[in-house]
């Protein structure tokens, strides 16, 4: 009898851990985007959640208004939202780099309110469904998982690793890493650093939008989807520290799984477990698990 319960428990935990991987995929993608933007611009992009939401909306609008299918939206939406990000950087962020970093936080917070408010006003706050582009499911033995969600986890891993590779192993990535450390010197070598900064923000925003497109078939498209998520992602970022890309990726996936397993072991704490982990990390390693104190 006990074995039966144990088996069920393990079964549930495995199932929740797998589902947690899905949440974790989004935590990883979004915290990675935040880390990249913070590294180059020294700005905490509060707007990240709203840009994620815009990506999801872009995909939904493309489908319902323009009959553009998911796979095309996966490419187009990040470009559209990314360009919007470029606009924000050039018109607004560029003007405040010389100020205290908290102003960047306030500015992006304000922008998030504006964007979210407009979407909420136009489309309300209830969610719209988006059809899953890959139908059906797979039986993993301990659970039945919709194929699309499995795809999302793999896609997220690919995206994260591709971003990591792009930053750590390519020439452009080297420019980015160097400019993060010493922008003045990099510019004195002939590299157009302001343009590099704009590009970085655009890419970070595009990444958020890409996550949004991937999220649409899973979480329903609503104007509030970013707001709920961004606060959790902040906690993830504090836990991981913003020192490394790999750190954000690992932390994101890990916390997703921990959250999932908490749902089985102690459901009332599921919502808050990430914050509890944050509190513990702050006690033990304030700079974050992978962070260097800035």
């Amino acid at each position, binding site marked *: 009898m006990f074995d039966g319960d144990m088996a069920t428990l393990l079964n549930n935990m495995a199932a929740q851990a797998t589902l947690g991987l899905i949440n974790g995929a989004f935590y990883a993608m979004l915290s990675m985007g935040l880390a990249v933007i913070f590294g180059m611009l020294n700005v905490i992009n509060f707007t990240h959640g709203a840009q994620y939401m815009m990506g999801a909306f872009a995909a939904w609008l493309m489908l319902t208004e323009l009959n553009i299918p998911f796979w095309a939206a996966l490419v187009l939406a990040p470009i559209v939202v990314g360009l919007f990000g470029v606009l924000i950087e050039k018109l607004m962020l560029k003007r405040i780099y010389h100020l205290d970093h908290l102003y960047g936080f306030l500015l992006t917070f304000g922008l998030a309110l504006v964007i979210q408010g407009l979407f909420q006003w136009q489309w309300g706050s209830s969610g719209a469904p988006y059809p899953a582009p890959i139908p059906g499911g797979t039986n993993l033995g301990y659970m039945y998982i919709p194929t699309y969600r499995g795809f999302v986890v793999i896609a997220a891993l690919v995206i994260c690793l591709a971003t990591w590779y792009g930053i750590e192993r390519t*020439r452009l990535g*080297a*420019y980015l*890493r*160097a400019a*993060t*450390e*010493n922008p*003045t*010197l*990099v*510019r*004195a*070598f*002939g*590299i*157009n*650093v302001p343009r590099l900064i704009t590009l970085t923000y655009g890419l970070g925003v595009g990444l958020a939008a890409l996550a949004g497109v991937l999220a649409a078939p899973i979480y329903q498209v609503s104007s509030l989807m970013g707001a709920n998520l961004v606060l959790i992602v902040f906690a993830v970022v504090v836990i991981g520290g913003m020192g490394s890309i790999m750190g954000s990726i690992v932390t994101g996936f890990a916390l997703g799984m921990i959250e999932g397993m908490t749902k089985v072991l102690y459901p009332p704490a599921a919502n808050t477990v990430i914050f509890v982990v944050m509190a513990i990390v702050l006690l033990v390693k304030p700079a974050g698990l992978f962070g260097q104190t800035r």
Partner: protein
Amino acid sequence: MADPLLKVKDLQAWYGESHILHGVDFEIGRGELVTLLGRNGAGKTTTLKSIMGIVGNRTGSVAFNGKETVGRPSDFIARQGIAYCPEERGIFSSLNVEENLLLPPQVQQGGMSLDEIYKLFPNLLERRRSQGTKLSGGEQQMLAIGRILRTGANLLLFDEPTEGLAPVIVQRIGEVIRQLKTRGFTILLVEQNFHFAATVADRHYVMENGRMVDTVTAAEAAASLDKLQAYLGV
């Protein structure tokens, strides 16, 4: 001087409210190696930074190859063919040695190839995969020098390349700089170590309080040793 590579006239520069350069005038001919001598705080580094365009506010004229560069951003200036080796070396810790070397883009033809640079600095070849900042002081200085040789820039600005280094490395750097001069690079060298400067330079300029106060050719230098030592506060 007819057709100097660099002609600086009445250059003034500020860091915020501090007025550092009060009107600097000098010229460098093609293929020359010229040094800026002077005490700490005389304005030597600020002069280099002003030429490179990375100081706050500057007025006056800095003409490179006949083209005015005051008021242009530093990436524009670099692309004209000027390269800067800063006093603090500026080796990037998030890049390895080879990535550091490959970072500055080629702005013109005529730069040294990666192989040639490795030949000049063999111990960089050995350590090419090491993290940039894990190198010793001398190796980092060589990396900082090697980095700008690939770009094709023909005016090289060196800020105190021998500072804090052991004599045997200082000698090596002197050899390298002489080789660079033979290859046709034009070099502006800021130095506090007059003995080192004397072994490589065609001419010396002396700076004090943000102005040029004297100029001495290599030939005259030996005779003016006392005067120069007085300028340097030695």
